[in-house]
Structure formats: structure tokens, C-alpha cells
């Protein structure tokens, strides 16, 4: 009897395995890896809809932005890359193309990706790895769309009898009032002027731009000096002036003194919960995607009644470096069993209006319905009115391929406040040196130099010691630990562009 039961169990297991193999053979699986901070369910409605359309199973893994490089590096080293994946730095992109690990899309574009072909035209060869003679290996993003806006609560200003600040002194005055004059009227000292955190350089962009300093990232941010040298922003002539201003805000407690432990999400939450009166971030969040669902207090129907934009000394935030984000690309694994299918799915998801509607809004009739399709007006249905439920079922999370195309649903449906704020911001942005070619010094010293800058920036704001002394120490460390070589290479590379 025991033998019989054992045999039966073994056979059942084997049959299950055969079934799994048979299923795997019958329906191909396309795996996609992308960066993003939403975590939809593994088997959600959008993935099922994509699978049904293409007769396959689609699996998309969304990795938090901060962990993406680590995840991709592990997959590259272990040779377990998905079919379609995002590459977010030019060093890896170039190395992979040279090593033959990326699929050449050129011969398949006509048949499987007509929208990609029509969209890019000859611009596709702007990528450092695409060439008419050798092939097309990467689909980069048109990123020149979103710039940061420094948003401010207009209702708080009105209550306190203040105007939108136009310079740094007025800003200090407003932040002080937002912090200490009970702008929310609850009788408690529970608000701060502005949300700042070292979790993201975006929060600081507009403030630093007021000093002409382009803090595009916390990872070794660069600027160009008057003599043409491209170097760390620590060497910018107004860097210490900016630091002194931030120190003044910090000492007066006009932003949360725990700014080094706050996450980006916690900063957003402070805005949503009416705990801060200003936030420097893309208005596509502040007045569009978060509006009104994320706010926990009563908000007017028109976001322009609640939020205004601040330009300090007439300056906005930072310009995107080029029309095309060349270092942020999608590529197909050369070892993929179904590269054409992966290409067709990428084409549909990010370059067609229908695919964008699916990935951004969800399944029509389930997640949303059109009110006026031509005008891009829609309404979400039932439980999917809740952003969290909507995104958990796959909507929104897969819509962006790292940047935005003309078919992009978000831009088609963006409200007027956001569109106007973005357009106005573009008029006032400051420039920064984006280097297209990968630098050897970045590979060798990039991680250490980034760490030095992050430490220096936070330490200079809070130090009770001599600021100049602390500054000199960090700058010397930056120069000694590869900065000099970095500066020389960056200057030469930028001049050659």
C-alpha cells in the first residue's frame, strides 16, 4: 500500500511538471524589468490585458528607483536578465552593447514596432549605442517634458496676509509665517514652511537654482564654472552662500530638522496632510496625479486655487539636459527567446495611444470610463477611484518608460494648472552640464565622490563648527579621492560634445 501511495504521489508530481512544461511551451512569457516606486500586484488586470492582446504571459517587475541599479547589476552578472529592461546609466548601456548582450532591433522595427520607428525617425541614432551601420540597441526617452515647480499653498498665504515670495528674503519671511503663525488654524505649532529631505535632490532644485546652482542629483552633482571647467557644485562660486541660507532656514527650524532621515514619500505626506506649505517637485504630482485624491483635507476643485508657483529672483528649477534622455533607455536582452514579441509589447505599451491608455488608466470599463475622449477627460470607477487600489491593480505603474513620448497618456490628460505651470517653469529654468559619454573617472571614483558630496551637503547645513573649515575639508577630500581626475575628464568630455 505504502509503495502504491508513493508511486502515485511521484506520478502526480511528474504529471504536474509535464503540465507546467507543456504550458510554458504553449504560452511564451515576456519578462520586463523597470524602475518605479509603485508596487502593483504580480498578476493584475493590466498584465492580464497585455497578455491577452499578445497571446502570452507578461510579467513586469517594478523595482524602487533607489534599488534599481543594484538589481540590474545582479541580473547582468548572473546572466538572468529579463526580455525587456531599463538601463539607467551610459556606462552599462555602452558596455552591454559592445559585449553583444543587447538585441539589435533595427531589422524588426518595421514589422513589430512601427510606432517606435515613426516616432523617432532618424533621431533614434542620437543614442550612444545606436548607429545606422551597426544597429539599434536602445530606446531612449524623450524626457524634456517635466521640470520641477516650487509649489506654495495660496490659501495659507491668504490667511496670513502674505504674497507669493519673489526673492530669498521674502521666502524666509513666508516660511517663517508658515512655521510659526499657525497657517492651518488648528491652534497647534505643527507645521513647517517647506518639505526638504536628502532623499531627493528634486526637493532642493528650486532653492539652489536661486543661487544659480544646478543640483541635478545628489550623486556627485556637476556645474560649469565661468572658465569652462566642469566640476562639483561644491566649487560653484555661490555654493557657500546657498549653504548659509539653508543653515539660516535650518537654525530657525523652518523645515523639518530630521531632513536626513525623512523619505521622499514622507515629504509628500507632509504636503498631503497639510503639514507644510511648500514643496519643490514636479507639478504633475502636486496638482495633477495626487489631486484631489491624496490630500487629506478639503481642497477646491481647481488646483490653481490651492497652489501657486514660486520663482526666486526670476529663476525656476533645472532644465532637462537634452530633448532625449540618452542615458535612460530600454533595451532587449540578446539572449531573449522572443525578442520580437518583447519589442512589440514595448511598442504597444509606450508608443501607442491605446497601450498608454491601458497602462496609465487601466482597463476601460473596469478601472475607468471616458467622459470626453477627445478632450482627454475620464472618470475612474468604483473602488479604483482610490489611487492605491488603482495602482495595485496595475494602472499607472507601467505607463512610463522612464520618460515620456507623444502618445503618453499622462501628458494628454494633464490638467490646465499643471500644463501652465510646466510651460511657465520652462521659461525660467537654469542650465547644467549633462555629459553624454561615460567617464572612466565615474566608474573608478563615482561612488566615493557621491558619498563625499552627500555627507558634505548635510553636514554643512547642520554643523555647529566653522563652516569654512568643514567645507575646505570636504572639498579637499573630493579632490584627493578622484575629483581632480573627474574634473579633467568631465571638462574635456563636455567641451567635446
Amino acid at each position, binding site marked *: 500500500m505504502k509503495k502504491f501511495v508513493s508511486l502515485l504521489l511521484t506520478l502526480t508530481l511528474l504529471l504536474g511538471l509535464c503540465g507546467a512544461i507543456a504550458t510554458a511551451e504553449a504560452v511564451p512569457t515576456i519578462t520586463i524589468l523597470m524602475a518605479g516606486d509603485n508596487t502593483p500586484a504580480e498578476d493584475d488586470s493590466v498584465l492580464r490585458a497585455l497578455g491577452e492582446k499578445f497571446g502570452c504571459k507578461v510579467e513586469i517587475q517594478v523595482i524602487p528607483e533607489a534599488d534599481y*541599479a*543594484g538589481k540590474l*547589476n*545582479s541580473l*547582468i*552578472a548572473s546572466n538572468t536578465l529579463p526580455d525587456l529592461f531599463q538601463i539607467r546609466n551610459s556606462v*552599462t548601456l555602452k*558596455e*552591454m552593447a559592445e*559585449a553583444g*548582450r543587447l538585441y539589435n532591433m533595427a531589422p524588426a522595427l518595421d514589422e513589430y514596432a512601427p510606432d517606435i520607428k515613426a516616432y523617432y525617425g532618424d533621431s533614434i541614432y542620437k543614442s550612444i549605442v545606436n548607429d545606422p551601420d551597426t544597429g539599434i540597441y536602445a530606446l531612449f526617452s524623450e524626457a524634456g517634458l517635466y521640470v520641477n515647480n516650487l509649489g506654495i499653498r495660496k490659501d495659507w498665504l491668504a490667511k496670513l496676509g502674505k504674497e507669493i515670495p519673489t526673492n530669498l528674503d521674502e521666502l524666509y519671511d513666508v516660511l517663517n509665517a508658515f512655521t510659526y503663525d499657525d497657517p492651518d488654524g488648528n491652534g497647534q505649532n*505643527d507645521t*513647517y514652511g517647506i518639505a526638504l529631505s*536628502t532623499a531627493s535632490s528634486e526637493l532642493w532644485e528650486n532653492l539652489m537654482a536661486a543661487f544659480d546652482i544646478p543640483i541635478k542629483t545628489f550623486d556627485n552633482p556637476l556645474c560649469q564654472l565661468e572658465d569652462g571647467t566642469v566640476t562639483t557644485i561644491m566649487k560653484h562660486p555661490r555654493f557657500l552662500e546657498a549653504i548659509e541660507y539653508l543653515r539660516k532656514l535650518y537654525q530657525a527650524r523652518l523645515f*523639518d*530638522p*530630521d531632513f*536626513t*532621515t525623512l523619505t521622499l514619500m514622507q515629504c509628500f505626506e507632509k504636503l498631503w496632510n497639510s503639514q507644510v506649505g511648500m514643496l519643490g517637485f514636479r507639478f504633475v504630482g502636486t496638482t495633477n496625479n495626487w489631486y484631489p485624491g491624496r490630500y487629506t483635507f478639503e481642497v477646491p476643485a481647481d488646483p490653481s486655487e490651492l497652489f501657486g508657483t514660486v520663482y526666486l529672483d526670476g529663476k525656476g528649477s533645472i532644465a532637462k539636459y537634452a530633448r532625449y534622455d540618452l542615458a535612460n533607455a530600454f533595451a532587449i536582452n540578446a539572449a531573449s527567446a522572443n525578442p520580437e514579441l518583447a519589442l512589440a509589447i514595448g511598442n504597444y505599451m509606450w508608443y501607442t495611444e491605446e497601450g498608454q491608455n491601458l497602462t496609465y488608466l487601466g482597463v476601460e470599463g473596469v478601472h475607468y470610463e471616458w467622459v470626453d475622449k477627445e478632450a482627454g477627460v475620464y472618470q475612474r470607477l468604483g473602488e479604483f477611484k482610490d489611487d492605491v487600489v488603482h495602482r495595485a491593480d496595475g494602472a499607472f505603474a507601467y505607463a512610463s518608460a522612464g520618460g515620456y513620448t507623444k502618445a503618453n497618456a499622462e501628458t494628454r490628460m494633464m490638467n490646465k494648472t499643471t500644463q501652465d505651470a510646466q510651460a511657465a517653469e520652462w521659461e525660467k529654468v537654469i542650465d547644467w552640464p549633462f555629459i553624454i559619454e561615460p567617464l572612466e573617472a565615474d*566608474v573608478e571614483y*563615482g*561612488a*566615493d565622490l557621491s*558619498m563625499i558630496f*552627500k*555627507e558634505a*551637503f*548635510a*553636514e554643512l547645513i*547642520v554643523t555647529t563648527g566653522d563652516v569654512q573649515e568643514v567645507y575646505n575639508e570636504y572639498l579637499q*577630500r573630493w579632490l*584627493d*579621492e578622484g575629483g581632480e581626475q573627474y574634473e579633467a575628464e568631465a571638462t574635456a568630455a563636455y567641451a567635446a560634445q
Partner: protein
Amino acid sequence: MTQSTKVINQQRRKGARLLHRFRADWMLYAMLIPGLVYVILFHYIPMYGVTYAFREFSAVKGLGDWVGLSVFQKLFAKNAFQRAFSNNILISVLKLVFGFPFPIILSLMINEIRSSKAKKLVQTAVVLPNFISWFIITGLMFALFNVTSGAIPGIIRRLNPEATIVNITSDKNSIRALVVASYVWQAAGMGTVVYLAAITGIDEQLYEAAMIDGAGKWKQMWHITLASLRPTIIVLFIFRVGGVMNAGFDQIYAMSNPLVISKIDIIDTYVYRIGIEQAKFSEATAAGLAKSVIGLALVLTTNFIAKKVDPDSGIM
């Protein structure tokens, strides 16, 4: 019978005895298999990877030429590595000094609780933190010490509204103390499990005899409980010293922020940064290998000293 035939017969008998023992206890040997598979699969096979420290390696292109010790030379010359190395030693030693005796003291205290219900409650309570992830613990600490809304600053403000409040999770001067204190809080309870089990095995008659001889609680604890625990303490100490270079990746990674990283960046977090985030696998392997070699040397030294002090102690 010649000498060689005798040897062959002896060997055959030995083989037959082994086979007999194996047949008799095959189930016990079978239970070894998962453990062996685990050790071979996850500890011995990956050892091949240490060769990366002596070769060029690119995640994209794979293994390149042998480069001798140049990866180590480059790594050791870096200030960031030197800082991580010294932080590693300091934090490990602090954890050893404060973390190792604490479970022993805690075990002795728990052992003195007379009510069995209270004893079980305390045992469970002190072990529970071990099952909480460092990311949760760090989140709790951030919430507790947050200058604006934290409970601790709130209490301080109530007691003294003029007090200058510092968030110790982002203060260079207090972060190491916080790392060690939170480690002791998290790990001490689990550490008591082995000691309490060893205490249970101590013969009650020893205590009775000591009481007759007039020994008080303190002397009983010192001369019987602690003396009986000595071999266990030594073995656990050797294991602990062996792992002394493991300063706690999860904890440090979760607690790091730009203001305190200079004080708590350790080899493991450095390796993660350059290895996983920057894909410099050769340097990361070299750092890991250096850490392991130091750990091995420490184990051997501690074992040697333990043997000298007490020949019955030690692990080999």
C-alpha cells in the same frame, strides 16, 4: 601471516565496522544530508568566487585576466575603505564588549525568577525583538526620536520646554552608542536561550550542598552557575569572535543617513555600495575576503588562547 596481510585485514575490519555502523544508523546519517547539501551549496561552491578578487571582472563581460594583488592594493589605498574598516573594527568590538556579557547577565537574572509563569513571560518578551527586522526597528527609532513628533523629544519638552533636542538617529556623536544599544536590545534575548538551557542542566545537588556550606545567592551564582556555564561561554565567545567582523549589515544599512554614515559605514555596507550598486565585483570580493581572513585569524587565536587557559575548552 605477513605484516602487509595484517594491515589489509585490519583495514577491511575497519571498513566493515564503518559499513555496519552506517547500516545500523542510516537514518541518522540521512538527516545529515540537508545540512551537508546546504554547507556545500551555499558555503563551499561559492568559494570559487573568491578568485574574482585576483582577476579582472566585469558584470557585462565576465572574468578577465589574473591581476595578482592589485585589486587589494587599490582597495586598501582608498580612504572610504579605510574608514569602513576602522568603523567595522570599532563597532564590532563595542558590540562584543557590551553585547556578549549581557545575555549571560540576563540569563542569570531570569534564572532567579521563582514564578514559572513570570519566567516564561520574561523569556518570551526578551526573545521577541530578535524577530523584528532592522528596518522596522529603525523605523520605530526614527518615529521615537523624531524632533517634531517623536515621543522621547515630546517627554523632554514637557519636562523642560527650553531643552535643546537632538535627534540621536542623525547625530554623529550618539549614533555609535545607538547602534550598540539597539543591537544589545535586539539580540540579548536570543542569546539567553543557550545559557538558560545550560543552566537547566546544572545539578541541583550542587546548590543544595553549597547552601549547607553556607553559600549565599551571590556565591552560588558565582561558584556554581557561572562556573558551570564556563565551557558554554568560551565556545560561544569563540564563535562570536569569529563573527566579529560581521558588524551587522542590515542594521547599519537601515540606520545610515548622510549625517552619520562617516561614523557607521562598515565593510559590508561599503561592499554593497561598490559591489551591487557600482558593479565593481572584484573590489567587493577583495573586501569580503579580507574581512573573512581576519575573522578566521581571530577564531584561531581565540581558540588557541582558550586552549592554553583551559585545555578542555575551545572548539578544535
